């Protein structure tokens, strides 16, 4: 099998898994209704995996396709706006931190999770001008950090398990 075919196949699989993870997360009950937006960010497992395995370009492709399909399937224009800003910030920051080579996947995914929350908060600030959003960010920074730790550990595991796939 040539490399290109392999890569397409692997990206197809990872994108599908990201979609399934997004679906699982969408049907889970909200963790805390007072602060909407607290999530584990399961699809980020895949984004981190692809980022480490194939680099920024492919992570951006998988992330982009996931966002479009997820918002068509389970969301609306509003959720798309929230997730696009979150996902772009998240991926940019993760790839910068990865480039410095000074953080493990855990540190990278913590930054990704918190940046994702930050992006959503930025959208929310434009939609509603209120200081309460500041409190949201405080809560989300804490939960984002915790989520990032778990995603980092999970991604590490996935990276080791997919070590045989060389592209």
């Amino acid at each position, binding site marked *: 099998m040539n490399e290109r075919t392999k890569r397409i196949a692997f990206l197809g699989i990872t994108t599908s898994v990201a979609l399934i993870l997004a679906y699982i997360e969408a049907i889970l009950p909200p963790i805390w*209704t*007072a602060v*909407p937006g607290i999530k584990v960010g399961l699809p980020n497992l895949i984004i981190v995996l692809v980022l480490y395995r194939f680099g920024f370009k492919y992570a951006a492709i998988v992330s982009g396709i996931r966002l479009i399909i997820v918002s068509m399937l389970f969301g609306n224009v*509003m959720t798309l706006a929230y997730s696009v800003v979150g996902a772009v910030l998240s991926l940019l920051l993760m790839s910068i931190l990865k480039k410095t080579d*000074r*953080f*493990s996947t*855990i*540190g990278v995914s*913590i*930054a990704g999770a*918190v940046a994702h929350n930050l992006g959503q908060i930025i959208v929310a600030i434009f939609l*509603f001008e*209120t*200081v*309460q959003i*500041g*409190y949201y*960010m*405080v809560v989300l*920074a*804490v939960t*984002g*950090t915790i989520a*990032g*730790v778990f995603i*980092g550990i999970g991604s590490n595991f996935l990276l080791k398990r997919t070590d045989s796939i060389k592209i």
Partner: protein
Amino acid sequence: MKNNSEKNQRKRNDIILAAVILIIAVAGFLFLNATKKNGSYVVVKIDGVEKYSYSITENITKEIITGENGEYTNTLVIKDGKASVLTANCPDGICVGHREISFVGETIVCLPHKVVIEVKKEASNQNLDAVV
């Protein structure tokens, strides 16, 4: 050995990163708490436009009706200087689950109905449909 020390270095950086984020969060929380003030008005915005304004000291129950055919409702309750949403027919019910608000700048948002209930320091001078 070099590999191992690099690993430890990364682990240390991870912890520093997490600690910095948490310290900023705690500092932000303390700052917001130190600067919060009791509000005196409760303002209802529908689709970004201020529609109703009430003094937070009065006790009222008000049905906020929105939607093209008036099919959406949120019941605003102001009691003991605090505002909350008692019932609503929105799908997520986040506004109903929201705790009572009383400090300046606090809001309850009903995203599906485009209703924002906000506590303010002073009543605004805009022309309102109802000033009580």
